[in-house]
């Protein structure tokens, strides 16, 4: 998937600029530097948010992540990669939001007017089934699944982002995959074999 490549490019771009003192300038409240950092990285955060909380709240929560990021930048130790730290902020923000809004149903991309404009034939029904199935599993499992399957993170990075022991990433992923399969089959997925 292209996302991995994009993420790789972001990683390189960010690390180059980090060396050039971009983070330090952001920390000083330099609005231009903040905008630069935001523009380099926001698509990663937005993509994660769309999957975790739904389209409806993705933009607002993405902004929330950057408000936190700019105010907490001094806490970034440089021990982990900046990108990992950013994913961590984003995942925390999403999970916190979902806990607060437990009764609220995540709105999938199916509700997106843009998608509805497309002719039925062009819409990928299979993909939509996965979107529905993802809504039905626990948000933390969903985030782990997303980080692995879409963001292509290693177990070590996932552990760091979600804040769980590295040894438990695999078993949680297995649970996420099983549960998704069960829901997909219920929804009429025929992709299994």
């Amino acid at each position: 998937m292209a996302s991995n490549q994009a993420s790789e490019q972001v990683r390189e771009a960010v690390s180059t600029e980090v060396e050039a003192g971009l983070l330090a300038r952001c920390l000083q409240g330099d609005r231009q530097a903040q905008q630069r950092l935001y523009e380099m990285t926001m698509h990663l955060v937005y993509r994660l948010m769309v999957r975790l909380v739904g389209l409806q709240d993705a933009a607002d929560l993405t902004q929330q992540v950057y408000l936190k990021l700019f105010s907490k930048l001094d806490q970034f130790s440089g021990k982990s990669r900046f990108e990992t730290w950013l994913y961590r902020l984003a995942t925390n923000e999403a999970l916190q939001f979902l806990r607060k809004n437990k009764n609220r149903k995540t709105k999938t991309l199916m509700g997106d007017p843009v998608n509805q404009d497309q002719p039925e034939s062009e819409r990928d029904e299979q993909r939509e089934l996965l979107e529905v199935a993802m809504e039905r599993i626990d948000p933390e499992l969903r985030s782990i699944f997303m980080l692995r399957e879409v963001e292509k993170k290693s177990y070590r990075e996932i552990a760091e982002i979600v804040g769980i022991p590295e040894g438990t990433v695999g078993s949680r992923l297995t649970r996420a995959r099983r549960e998704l399969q069960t829901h997909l089959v219920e929804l009429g997925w025929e992709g299994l074999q």
Partner: protein
Amino acid sequence: MNCSQIQELLSDYYDRELKEDVRQHVEAHLKACDRCAESLAAFESLSLLAGKLSTPSPPAGMWCELEARLQKESQGTGSVVLLEEKSRLPFRWYGRYSRVITAAVLLLAVGIGYLNFTGKEHGAHHHADGVFNQYLTAFEKNPDSAQQILLKHYQYDPVQPQQAARLLGYQPAIAQSVPAGYEVQSSYVMKMPCCTCLQTVCKRKDGSCIVIFEHDDETPEWFEGQPKIKATCNGEKCCLINLDQDIAASWQHGKRHITVIGIRDVNEVNSLVAWSERDSDKS
């Protein structure tokens, strides 16, 4: 290893996160056991499906809103409460209360970021009669009767936008194209105390309207005493003003300036700035 132990390690195996010796055990089992091999194949199908997930492009204007929020934050006082309120805002506005909420948010966003529209102190700029204020107040309730206030106080010529150039001495943006999703309802060359400008009322599909002013001066003191927010919208420096139920925005357009009232949200500001900039490219 038995099947349930293998099943426990299946994700680690699939994602190539196992140590070599364990991996070999799992692999040997998978060759001999159809049930576990099937589970693994299901993981693969699921990955294929996940690879098809797509993400829509982020809505325009996110930085613009974020910048306003950052500006508000940097003022310090009460930021926690304000942030909380702001965080409840959906970015895309579908609800009918959205205009009221937008206005409230813009109001919250004000403080140190306060900008004066113009430092000029010419007598001519002062709308001592408060006509424009009356107009803005009336506009919130009824744009048609608000229009009558302007027409009553100022000299005007009703024009077709395409014919305004001979009165204005320049080709206004609206004559080059109408922003997408709007329809021109009326257009006037209006002689106001500050300057002569072109005022165009544009209707949305739902019948509500925005009013576009194109004027020479940096910005007339139309919004005197109202809090203003500096923001970058669609790459242009914009000044946003919180009105009662909607917002006004003003930005530079070539040698002139465009001010629009009746805007619902920052997204709409972005699309209007994009409209005016597209035209300036052409001319």
